[in-house]
Structures are given as structure tokens and as C-alpha cells.
């Protein structure tokens, strides 16, 4: 019984960490779309949290938030634009551009994550899951 439970537990964990892409869908696009939505929800959550708690936060956190307010929408739009180009062409050059903008978007997300409390991070993850068809 213990061995069976151990096996099922291992399979459950394997299932949790393996993203299987439906037939006919490009794993690169699926991952890129999921990354962009996750990044958006983390940054969006960070900015809402920063605004609600601004009085008690250091000026560095607010400066980071303002930088993200200014730059992140452009990063996201650019990433989505090159991803749309890649979806039409499926060519290596567009793929490189998508990767480049994904680095910018994910760097912004990591900067936000550094300051975001775990409870807010969990909320952002749940919100991002809505966009995983």
C-alpha cells in the first residue's frame, strides 16, 4: 500500500510540473503566452500592493513601481506584437525577437516579485491561470 501511494504521489507531482501541449499547438507560443500573462499579473499585483501600502514602504520600492508603471506596458505590448508576428510567420528571426522581449518582461516581473509578499504572489498566480486555456 505504501509503495502504491508513493507511486501515485510521484505521478501526481510529475503531472503538476509537466505542461503538456495539445496536438497542433506550438509549445514555444504556449509558454510565451503563459509567461506574458503571469508577468502582467505579478506586476499588476505589485503595483496595486505598492499603492495600497505606499506610506510604509521605502522610496526605492515606490521608485521601482513608478519605473514599472512607465516601462512595463511598452515591454508587454512589444512582446505581444513580436509574438503575434511569430505566430503568423513561425520563423527563427521572429522567435529570437520574442525571446528578447520575454527577457525584458520577465526581468520586470522578477524585480516586482522581489518585493511582493507571498500572499500577493499567490493571488497573481491564480489570476494568471485564468488565461491558460
Amino acid at each position: 500500500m505504501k509503495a502504491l501511494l508513493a507511486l501515485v504521489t510521484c505521478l501526481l507531482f510529475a503531472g503538476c510540473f509537466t505542461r503538456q501541449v495539445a496536438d497542433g499547438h506550438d509549445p514555444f507560443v504556449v509558454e510565451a503566452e503563459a509567461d506574458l500573462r503571469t508577468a502582467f499579473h505579478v506586476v499588476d499585483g505589485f503595483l496595486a500592493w505598492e499603492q495600497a501600502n505606499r506610506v510604509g514602504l521605502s522610496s526605492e520600492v515606490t521608485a521601482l513601481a513608478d519605473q514599472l508603471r512607465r516601462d512595463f506596458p511598452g515591454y508587454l505590448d512589444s512582446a505581444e506584437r513580436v509574438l503575434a508576428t511569430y505566430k503568423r510567420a513561425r520563423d527563427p528571426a521572429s522567435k529570437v525577437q520574442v525571446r528578447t522581449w520575454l527577457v525584458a518582461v520577465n526581468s520586470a516581473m522578477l524585480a516586482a516579485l522581489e518585493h511582493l509578499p507571498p500572499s500577493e504572489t499567490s493571488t497573481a498566480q491564480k489570476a494568471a491561470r485564468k488565461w491558460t486555456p
Partner: protein
Amino acid sequence: MDPVTIIAAISAATTLTEKLVAIMEERSRVRELTPEQEAEWQAFKRARFRMPHWEPSDEPRD
């Protein structure tokens, strides 16, 4: 091992297997966004960008 324990063990294993199958089925549905979902996403995103927490803080900068 008595029959009741064996039945309980089989029942527990069956429940876990059902959960496993559900997770696997969910994972196998991961796919690219449809044009309708993409349009919904763009509308949602634009609406969020207009919310107050996306406004600059107006804090003085050095």
C-alpha cells in the same frame, strides 16, 4: 490485512488515480489562445492599465 482495510486502501488509491487523471487531462488541454481569448485578454489588460494603481505616484525624485 483484513478485508475492510483492503477495501479502504483500494478506494483511496482509486480516488488518487481519479485526481491524477483529472490533472493529466487538464495539462493536455494547454494550448495557444484563440483570437476570442486574445481579444478578451487585450480588453482586460487595457482596463487594468487605466486603473489608479497604474498612475504615477507623484513622489518627488532626486
